[in-house]
């Protein structure tokens, strides 16, 4: 009986948390499209999320593309299919590794920063101060971050895709003996619009998740420095898990047979 009660309690808690998150997201989305729109804040967030994430996303993509080329070469050589290296690299990067790795890296960098910043504002009464100054915190703090992350992640992923393919190209031509012409030909000939498009759609979803988790956990943080620390950790963990779960469903939506 106690076990059943425990299951019931956990289920109710999960549903309540999901409901709170859905209401938070809905309220914030409503503020994205209703005036006043804080263009200055949206621009600042776009630079913070997009431009300043370029180094970490670029390096991640470069080495992932390079490692991928090496691994595929080793694996495909077992059945004499070395010529597939360029094609597999570009498909893997554009469909999966570009968006997922960029999403995870940005989740670590941006979601944590949002949770820490908004959490600190919460525990130091800055969010209350915003409200007393007749400014809605959802509109001023949350909506610009959601919009900026949802717009900037696809752009970051397009850059990551390019750099990832470049990493594969560098290893392919510099170490594995492919000629520039054949590597580029195999890259361009077999890539389809849907490969890139699905990655961009995933990136937009990941951007929304990253900003939502950072803002949600920061906004509801309590109890001083420890509360802000917990909010930061929860933001990164929940954003990362949701990215992986969402990745499966978006993949299934685009590519299920």
């Amino acid at each position: 009986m106690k076990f059943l009660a425990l299951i019931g309690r956990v289920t109710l808690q999960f549903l309540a948390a999901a409901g709170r998150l859905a209401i938070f997201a809905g309220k914030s989305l409503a503020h994205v499209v209703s005036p006043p729109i804080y263009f200055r804040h949206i621009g600042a967030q776009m630079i913070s999320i997009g431009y300043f994430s370029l180094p970490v996303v670029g390096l991640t993509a470069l080495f992932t593309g390079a490692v991928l080329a090496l691994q595929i070469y080793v694996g495909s050589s077992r059945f004499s299919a070395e010529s597939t290296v360029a094609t597999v690299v570009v498909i893997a990067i554009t469909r999966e590794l570009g968006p997922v790795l960029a999403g995870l890296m940005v989740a670590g960098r941006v979601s944590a920063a949002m949770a820490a910043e908004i959490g600190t504002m919460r525990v130091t009464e800055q969010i209350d101060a915003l409200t007393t100054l007749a400014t809605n915190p959802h509109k001023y703090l949350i909506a610009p971050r959601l919009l900026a992350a949802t717009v900037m992640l696809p752009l970051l992923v397009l850059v990551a895709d390019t750099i990832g393919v470049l990493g594969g190209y560098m290893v392919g031509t510099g170490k594995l003996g492919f000629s520039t012409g054949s590597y580029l030909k195999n890259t361009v000939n077999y890539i389809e619009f849907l490969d890139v498009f699905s990655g961009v759609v995933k990136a937009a979803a990941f951007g929304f998740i990253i900003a939502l988790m950072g803002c949600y956990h920061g906004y509801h943080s309590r109890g001083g420095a420890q509360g802000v620390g917990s909010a930061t950790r929860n933001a990164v963990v929940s954003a990362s898990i949701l990215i992986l779960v969402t990745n499966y469903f978006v993949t299934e939506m685009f590519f299920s047979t």
Partner: protein
Amino acid sequence: MNDRPLAAPAPEESAGHDTAAAETPKIRLRGLCKRFGKNVVLDALDLDIPRGRSVVVIGGSGTGKSVMLKCILGLLRPEHGSITIDGEEVVGLRGRERDRILRKFGMLFQSAALFDSLPVWENVAFGLIAGHKMKRGEAKDVAIAKLAMVGLGPEVGMLSPAELSGGMRKRVGLARAIATEPECIFFDEPTTGLDPIMADVINDLIIDCVRELGATTLSITHDMASARKIADEIGMLYQGRIIWLGPVDRIDHSGNPYVDQFINGRAEGPIHMEVLKR
């Protein structure tokens, strides 16, 4: 036991319409209840803040003073009771209606609550730019003038809040609270954490600013020196209710043992602090 009734006659009880308008308090709390879990913080609290007066609510830590302020500002929602501002019920107001009411208020937070990401002048001008849609250049001029009112030079306006001392932060917070020239100003522990001289400076600034604006003020504090200086009337909050309210010059002769114990800072008396002794 109170020197003035906590509840003034309701407007409709007065004979003439003009008299009713004159007697309507700026802020009226009736039967205000707020609890957190099983902890009842406000228990059917009644209080009137007359127009243009400075009311200070005293009481021990954790007695619900800040909760009362947050309920009036709509930061917390009471379980029961009524809050009227200029005779208009504000409990449950949302969106633009709530923003309209909030534009009547300024607030100095205990920690000043300055926005870390903005320079000092933009903190002061925030309500003008975001709430009153003033142009940034114009708002900056007003902010510099308000900083001057609290004794800070224009160079302070360019600093980050992290570069300010505790006293300067309070002064910037005060400048922000008065920047929009609100009808009501709330002060949450305005002198907490300051040395006695700086605390007196803040008290003087509060008196000067409020006199110049003609604002209605509600302050909460447990600093009796501050309360005596800035108050027209003092109320004491205990166990979720105002147990005494009267003119500041009557506080020493309240005849209320709770008030006497509190203002004289005695450990012995009807108020028992929950302290575990080994």
